[in-house]
């Protein structure tokens, strides 16, 4: 299983987001050129899982996000930690729209390869 999310990007619009299932999982928001601007998680507190989270962002896209990609997973907490830590490894900082993260709550991961 790849460390980094490598699924295809989809348009962050209401119609596309509404078609996403209400599953637990992780997601990334990106700009048109594929720059990741936000890493998120649809945990058990969300009302409609990934669909609910994406529709929320669709209404108010952070940092110019126009696209999204998802991964449905029951291991949403460990996968979220892994994605954020892989991003930290690749870029040395959090994604620009992840403004509420505390560095001390994330560790150091040194995965092979580079950003997708």
């Amino acid at each position: 299983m790849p460390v980094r999310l490598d699924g295809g990007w989809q348009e962050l619009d209401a119609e596309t987001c509404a078609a996403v299932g209400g599953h637990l999982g992780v997601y990334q928001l990106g700009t048109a050129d594929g720059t990741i601007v936000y890493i998120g998680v649809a945990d058990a507190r969300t009302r409609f899982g990934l669909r609910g989270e994406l529709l929320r962002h669709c209404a108010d896209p952070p940092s110019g996000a126009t696209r999204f990609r998802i991964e449905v997973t029951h291991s949403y907490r460990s996968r979220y930690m892994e994605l954020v830590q892989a991003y930290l490894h690749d870029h040395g900082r959090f994604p620009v729209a992840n403004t509420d993260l505390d560095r001390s709550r994330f560790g150091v991961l040194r995965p092979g390869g580079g950003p997708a």
Partner: protein
Amino acid sequence: MDFALTPEQTMVVDMVRRFVREEILPLEENLDADAEEVAPEVLSRLAARTREMGLYGLDTPPEYGGPDIDMVTRALIAMECSRHRAGLYAPCYQAFGGARQAQLFEATDIQKERYLYPMLRGEKRAFFALSEPSGGSDPARAIRTRAVRDGDAWVLNGTKLWISGADRADYGLVFARTGGPGRSGVTAFIVETHWPGFNVTRVVHTLRSSKYATEIHMEDLRVPHENILGREGGGFEIANDRLARQRIPYAAECLGVAMEAHRMAIDYARIRETFGAPLAHRQGIQWMLVENEIDIRSARLLVLDAAARADRGEPFRTESAIAKLVCAENGFRVVDRSMQIHGGLGVAKDLPLERWFREMRIRRIGEGPSEVQKHVIARDIIGGSLR
């Protein structure tokens, strides 16, 4: 044989039970179903409470500032601390001080200054790396990570698997082969995670979404000779000591979750009506509850027996293996039956049962699978020919 609790033990059990009910359960109403942590300021507040109770640092020896409690009381506390959603792998969200690398209490004075005391002050985090892709239950034979002496240092190469907390740790204990095959060829090293050649390469995703495991790669990792913990070739005893010591509270935590699942099943069976009668009136449900009760009572006796033997200074390896085996197996069955009684609600994340089911399944494997516990027991009751 007297299994009654002393007045002090009764007081401690009541105090911890009240702490879980008043402080932990309300917190969990606003946390994700798989949460493993609370905000640092919340943890500070909780830890202040456990310090007031005189129970902070449960596994820290009194000479290092921990409470001076016997193993029976430790087991009773473990049962109570685990009676909430995150209780199996994050009992009370570490408000009682969290897990400690107990081996470091045997470290040299310099090692204690550098590693143990900062950990006890909460300034540094540590991990424990024994298992490898080649196996974890038989470390004496499975360890392939190699350490080769080079002047004043050792050079480590190899891979460790199923290692909790390595990505967020400052240092850890790494077991590597410095000699030939078997027990005497294994040495424990204290390794700092920022040293060149140390890499946490991935998160290992399992049934347990919280407290995840990681994989570590070491490539030409240079470790100073003075960072050997204990003696060269003495790593197996260090690892084995940890495993034996931890089995009792580990078993008791399984039991605590089983007790809570059973309590929920009884409550639900009393109020849930089907076909005109409460579930509790159905013989099929009654028998499940009876089986739960028997599984819990028998496991409780065994874990307290192991703890009492440890307190008396008697050998307790066999008893702790029996306790770990029975508490994990019985606990899993109790949670499974309790889910069944709850029907669809039992598998929903609205209740903690589904998390306990996933995590209890891991308990039958972690810290020595049930089959390895049986192997330990068989070796002791049959004798040396199996060694």
